[in-house]
Every structure is written in C-alpha cells, then in structure tokens.
C-alpha cells in the first residue's frame, strides 16, 4: 500500500508536509522519532540531530521516488504498520496526512503522539514545512538555516525571463499538474509556461490525449516509468506522445526531486534549465 501510495498518487499524496495536526501533547524535543511517510522521512533526515530520528519508511529506500536513499540506509526501516512502530517505542510519529488513518489512530490510542503533515502544494509551502519540521523536532536553528539557504538558492534560480516556452506535465494514466501544484511551480520557476493552466487544469486532473496533442506544447515532461509494466504507463509510449516528444527538446522526466516538498525541488528546477535554454536559444 505504501508503494502504491508513492506511485499513482505520488503528486497528490506524498508531496507531504504540513500543518501538523496536534493530536496529543507533543514532546518539546522528542528523542525517539519515527517517520512513516516518504516526504517527512526526508525532511526529518535533513533536520534531526544525531540519534533523534530512529526509523524511516521503506519508501525512503526506493530510488524511483526518494532523493535520499543512501541516508535512509542508516536508519531502521518501518513499513508504516502500527505493531512494528509501537515496538520501537517512539515518543513521536510523523506521518503524511494521507497515511493510513487506521494505523495512526491505533498509535494514538496506544498513547503515542502523531504529527500529520499535509502535502506542500507550492514552493512557499515547502518553506513552511521545513519550519514546521524544525519546530516539531526542536531544531529551529537548523531549520532557519535551511530556509535561508533555500531562499537564496531559489532567488538565484528564479531568473527573470522574457520568453516562456510552453510545457506540459504528463504522467501515467494521462494525469497532469496545473499551476497550483508543486510541480507546476517548479515548471514556472524554471521559466516555462504550463499549458495545463490555459486548458483548464489549475491543479491535478486527467488531460485527454487528444487535447494534449492539439495543444502542441514546446516541451513535454513525463514521469519516469516504474520497473515492471502497467497499462497506466503505456500511455506514455502512445504514438501521439512519441510524436510530441519527437523533434522537441529532450524528453525530460519528473522524478524523485519533484515528489516531495524538500530543498530537492531546487535540483528539479535546475535540471529544467538546459531544456529551457535550448528552446529559447538563451545562454
């Protein structure tokens, strides 16, 4: 289930971070923290002090969606199951707002405080989530430094551009992300005009292949196929999609750097740079 969560709904579900809904009294500076969500895993690994974080979810080891697989290997792995987590005797569990509710309720009944992080839908929210993770872990200073660094790097990346080539995000099952999403903001920050907005997809939605073909975006950013095969992803190899890729800037992928609201989104913005420059012939 966790894997599935990280897959089809990667964008919706695991871009997690957020207004932690305080269920029980949170410890001031927790000593045994367990994270059960890919995005909180990564934020916690970045901000926790040595020994403070004891376990991350198995999804953090998946190179397809996790930007921190090497770091994750240093931690005990959990599968987001109540029994497993309870036996670790954590004093704080950090979950995404889309994590399995039954598991989190069970942990709360057993007296373990659970913080729920909602997904980050914008670059501003990425900033907020870092601050919230800092508060939660009692690592405000580290979080402040991280935010300052994030702001500086983002400002440097977000160069003013006159010409914005059009681009479309296209994922398995024909889903797309509009401007009011993290992926949409990554695209905008990299100097692209997202066609999903003009086609009536402000956030997430299924864009019919016909509509995409007629819109003729300058660049197409697709998701990287998972191992094994699926009909959902077969659409990314449809002759029409291949024709859209053909003669256009290199097929680009939205991958692990795009999934979560962490500073890795900056790397995603950076990776789109050469594509935009090639399209606009700017240096």
């Amino acid at each position, binding site marked *: 289930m966790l*894997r*599935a969560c*990280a*897959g*089809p709904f990667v964008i919706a579900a695991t871009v997690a971070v957020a207004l932690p809904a305080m269920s029980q009294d949170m410890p001031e500076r927790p000593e045994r923290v367990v994270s059960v969500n890919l995005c909180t895993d990564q934020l916690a690994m970045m901000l926790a002090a040595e020994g403070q974080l004891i376990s991350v979810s198995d999804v953090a080891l998946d190179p397809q969606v996790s930007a921190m697989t090497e770091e994750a290997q240093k931690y005990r792995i959990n599968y987001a199951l109540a029994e497993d987590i309870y036996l670790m005797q954590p004093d704080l569990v950090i979950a995404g707002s889309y994590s399995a509710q039954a598991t989190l309720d069970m942990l709360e009944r057993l007296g373990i405080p659970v913080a729920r992080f909602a997904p980050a839908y914008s670059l501003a929210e990425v900033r907020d989530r870092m601050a919230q993770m800092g508060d939660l872990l009692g690592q405000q200073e580290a979080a402040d430094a991280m935010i300052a660094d994030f702001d500086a790097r983002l400002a440097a990346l977000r160069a003013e551009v006159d010409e914005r080539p059009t681009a479309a995000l296209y994922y*398995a*099952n*024909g889903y797309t992300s509009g401007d009011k999403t993290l992926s949409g903001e990554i695209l905008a920050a990299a100097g692209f005009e997202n066609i999903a907005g003009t086609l009536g997809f402000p956030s997430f*939605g*299924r864009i*019919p*292949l*016909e*509509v995409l*073909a*007629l819109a*003729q975006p300058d660049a197409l950013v697709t998701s990287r196929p*998972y*191992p*094994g*095969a*699926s*009909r*959902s*992803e077969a*659409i990314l190899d*449809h*002759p*029409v999609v291949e*024709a859209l890729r053909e003669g256009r800037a290199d097929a680009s992928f939205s991958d692990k750097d795009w999934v979560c609201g962490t500073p890795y989104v900056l790397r995603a913005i950076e990776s789109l740079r050469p594509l935009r420059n090639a399209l606009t012939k700017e240096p």
Partner: protein
Amino acid sequence: MARPALWLSLLTVGLFVIALTLGPAQIGPFESLGALIVDDSSPLTMVMREIRLPRAILAVLVGASLGLSGAAMQGYLRNPLAEPGLIGVSGAAALGAVLAIQTGVAATVTLGLPLMALAGALIGVLLILALAGPRGSSLTLILAGIAISALSGALTSLVLNLSPNPFAASEIMFWMMGSLADRSMTHVWIALPFVLVGGGVLLSLGRGLDALTLGEDAASAMGIRLTRLRLVLVLGTACVIGATTAVAGAIGFVGLVVPHILRPLVGARPSRLLWASALGGAVMVLAADIAVRLILPERDLKLGVVTALVGAPLFLHLIYKTRSQLG
C-alpha cells in the same frame, strides 16, 4: 437474412462515423473527418488517425468477436446462457494477457501478448466444455463459469498485486471491466489478424450448428463431424476472445444480449445468427463506447460497466425463464 444484415451494417457504419467525431477535443464533425482522410500533417490528423480511428476500429473488432463467439457457443451448447464473459473465457484470457505483460513476454516476443491471452482463453473454453459436457445444461454451465471467472479473476489480481509497478494493482478494474480509451493502432494490428482468422473459423460453423439444432444424432447422420466442430469452435473462440481481451480487457454480456435480441429476427437459424451477431456485437460495443464518452467524458468509465447495466437484467430474465431446467 438480407434485411437484418442490411440494417445492422448501416447501423455499424453510422455509429462508426459518430464514434470518430466524438472526443474531448471539440472539433467539428466535418473538420475532423476531413482531417482523417486528408493528411495535412496537422495535429488534428494525428488525433484522428492515432487516437479516434484505432478506438473505433477496436470497438468494431471487440464487439464483433464477442457477439460472434457468444452466438457460436450458444449454438453449440444449445443454451442461451453461454457467453464468453459470463462463463469465464474472457477472464481466463485476461489472466493470460496480464501474465504476458507482467512477465515481460509481451515486450520481448512478437505477438506474445495476444498469444498468451489466446492460451488463457483456450484453457478457459476447454475447462468449460469439459465441465459442462457437450449438451451443457444451464446449471453446470453457470457453476463452471462462476468457478472459472472467480479463479481467473483472483489470479489476475494476485499477479497485478505482486507487480513491482505500483500502477499495476490499480488496473484490476481495467482487466475486469474493459476499456478502449487511448488505445493505439499498435493494438489494432495486434488484434486484427487473430480476429480475422478466428472470426472466419467461427463463421464456417454455420452449417454444422444448423444441423445440431436437430440433435446430435441427426447432425451426425447429416455428415457433421461433431468432434471437429467442437475443436473448431474452441480454437475460433479462443482466437477472437484472446486477441480482443488482450487489448481491451474483459467486456461482459455482449455475447449474451446480442444473440438474444437478434435470434427472432433471423428465424432462430444459428448460421444466420452468427453473421447477425457479429454485426450486432459491433453495434453494441460502438454504442457503449459512445455512451461512456458522452456520460462521463473525463472519468474513463469502463465499457463493461455499460454493457453489464444492459446485460445483467437480461441475464436475470433468462435465468428466470430457464429456471425449470435448473431445477
């Protein structure tokens, strides 16, 4: 024969043209048909030739296959309840297709996908015929069908759940209910040869099935070789159901509804019913595929949902009618 065939042909052509002019991209009917015929290298031609045309062609292929194989099985078993979807042949074909895709056979072996689906369908038909016997009483037919459907459905779910691909598990619905959304010409080429061969084989059964209406002894006396008839039926059905299920998933009830409606119109002669059901099946699936695009265009409503809504009440009606036989 002539009149129903003419009407059904006209209806098929009409619905085919309507199917071509319908889509989420708002294009006028004349503009879109023009772009289909004249290649002006615009995106519109691309949309028409690579998205809408394969979808409409597949609707015809799938419908004709389901209608034809339903009529043939009903003729052979002399039982109006025999239908590839209901008795598990489509489900077994779907299992074969899923295995081909998940093991990589579909990607590495040419025609691996339809051949594996064909093998699945073949096992399904053989099991049904073995369990139901040559005279297929309704009770054993339905019970055997339930068992085969349940088993192949469970195995299909298992294979999809074991896949390393997180999307695979969410596709159980597609394999159970079927859909023609976003299929390409590649899928048409995969299915077409098998449908042509299997369809031709099934249509050749007309005379034998006509003779069989008089009983097995009479048919043998008329020179019909029953074992050969049975073999041809099994292979033909596996061919058409395997190939169409591999590209469109398992779509139920078409083979039940279409022969039932058309039977009185063709004077209950199996040989005429075969032709009529092939055309009628194409009409039904084209209409259902138009319906899914009109009712919930943005949701990818599954084809099998529409056909089941039409077919399941009729199925209940047929069971009610044959209940004395069921005992």
